[in-house]
């Protein structure tokens, strides 16, 4: 296939997906709910990582004051946990609709238009982005896994688990994106009321 044909095929696939989801959304709601439960679970894990990372970081700093020294393993564990919060928490954050938007237009339009924006945005922006990210980061993880890559720092941790987290996290996000698409389609069809209206995240 030429590149032009590839491009056309992708556009057709996206359009087909919108049509299919709109047609089948009633039957897909079970799937959407199952994905929501999965995201809620990973979200709980990410919540715990906040507290754990806090305790590890503070404990590490304290140990250093008291002259116990600190180890690279503890330092690296902190950002492993940061990676965990971000990658496992993003899908839950998407579920509760807290990814920030520029709502100059979004804030003015009615609910139905918002559902359409979310449906099309999910198909055109989010899904391809996640698929590409998985595509780019998977071989990167495999390369690390095959050599059993470890940190260059003395006493550092194995590197491949955190590299595995990237494709896994984007898979969760991809699934949640699918769930959102199904729910938005259902909302457009009028048999589902979306529970998380968009509110600006508070800082």
């Amino acid at each position, binding site marked *: 296939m030429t590149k032009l044909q590839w491009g056309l095929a992708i556009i057709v696939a996206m359009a087909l997906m919108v049509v299919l989801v709109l047609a089948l959304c009633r039957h897909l709601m079970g799937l959407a709910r199952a994905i929501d439960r999965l995201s809620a679970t990973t979200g709980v894990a990410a*919540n715990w990582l906040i507290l754990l990372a806090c305790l590890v970081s503070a404990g590490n700093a304290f140990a250093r004051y008291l002259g116990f020294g600190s180890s690279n393993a503890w330092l690296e564990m902190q950002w492993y946990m940061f990676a965990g919060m*971000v990658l496992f928490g993003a899908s839950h954050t998407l579920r509760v609709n807290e*990814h920030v938007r*520029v709502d100059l*237009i979004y804030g003015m339009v009615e609910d139905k238009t918002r559902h359409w924006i979310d449906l099309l945005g999910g198909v055109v922006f989010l899904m391809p982005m996640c698929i590409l990210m998985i595509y780019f980061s998977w071989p990167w993880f495999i390369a690390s896994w095959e050599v059993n890559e470890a940190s260059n720092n003395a006493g550092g941790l194995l590197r491949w688990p*955190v590299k595995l987290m990237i494709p896994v996290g984007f898979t969760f996000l991809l699934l949640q994106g699918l769930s959102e698409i199904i729910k938005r389609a259902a909302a457009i069809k009028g048999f589902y009321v979306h529970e998380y209206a968009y509110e600006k*995240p508070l800082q």
Partner: protein
Amino acid sequence: MITTISQNLGPVMFGALVLFLLIGYPAGFSLAAVGLFFGFIAIEFGIIDPSFLGAIPFQLFSILSNDLLLAIPFFTFMGAILERCGLAEDLLDSIGQLFGSIPGGLSYAVIFVGAILGAITGTVAASVIAMGVISLPVMMRYGYNMQHATGVIAASGTITQLIPPSLVLVVLADVMGKSVGDMYAGAIGPSIVQVSLFCVWVAILSYLKPHHVPALPPEARTLRGKALAWKCIRGIVPSAALIFLVLGTIFMGLATPTEAGAMGAVGSLALAAMYRTLTWKLCYQGMSSTMRLTAMVAFILIGARIFSLIFQGVGGGLWIEHLLTQLPGGREGFLIFSMVFVFFIAFFLDFFEIAFIIVPLLTPAAEKLGIDLIWFGLLICANIQTSFMHPPFGFALFYLRGIAPPEVKSRDIYLGSIPWIVLQLILVGLMIVWPEMVTYWLDKPVQIDPAAIQQRMNDLTPPGLSAPGGGSMPPLDLNAPPKL
């Protein structure tokens, strides 16, 4: 047509970014999608190499392994705990009684408590909610002007953004590649000036319109003498301990900002336990809201990195830098343009979007024009403060609306914020004409004399070698096989 597009892919990409963001889909995902889409187009046009996109995992990894970004969850978590632990209540109660007898006394108390809370934590919510719940009813009961009361509370809540340890400054330091410690040191001067500006405004108001800011009648000041002193100590001692734990350790070089944030969070948990307000529900709510904010911010950053990777690849960065350095008025022109631009863009983008999308575009031009980046970062920080006070991202106003009694009209809250926004803009102006406000607190850069270094280099003689050109090395015979 095609060649025109391919030669101007930078501007086209920038236009597409604006368009895609305006649609209203979550910004992080839109940014990443624009970046990837144009990445494929640029490969197709032969502008960038296909291997370019292979750098994306490295970009992702560098975000996730950035130790400094961990300060975002830590400071947010700390703020979430402090918000409801009862410290702000004690502070306001005692300082309000202390200043109550002078006109505008409650306003001064709110400003000082805002500054103290600002020095403890790095987020806005904590101070505004606490101050609104406690001070607003008191101010209303004793006849404070409604617009003034809501304005001073919202404004004092936003002081947090400038006073170290501010989350805004951590993020700006990271984006600009500067040290957080320097950013914090530079922020000391502007913070003092801002608090003074606010106080001066209250003083002017109490002279011009004393009925807007009446003194508390004696029967309202229930605490006196020892009881008042005890209450003050109860509020101020734990605050001082927390300030030391966070700011002290950073300035003394004992802890990184990230570690200081973690210790502050643990410290505020301990404080909440001391005040007997620590419940598992409070803690878990804090964890949960912190996690959502962290994931949201990290995804804006991921999107922005992917976007800028491709944007730099197609030459967009150079295009922007060229535009900005060619502005009429050179350095001053650039400063004025960027300040006005940031002020207005803050109506459309929230702080993290500005920091991750706009600031990286401005920084190279600022550097090229010889502008001190610490100073520039603090200007942006002081400028962005206003965006917490005006719609649509005026968090301070939303918080206030959320907790204000129904007789407070939204109109009062919005109108009341105007004088304070003007005061913050005056601060930006003062910082521009008087950069010493920032640089005074920074360590003086070490003066380097290139000639002296050259001399030192010449003086260095490697051991075992005679003077340069002495030829003490044995000649190499390339034809002979190496002797083993």
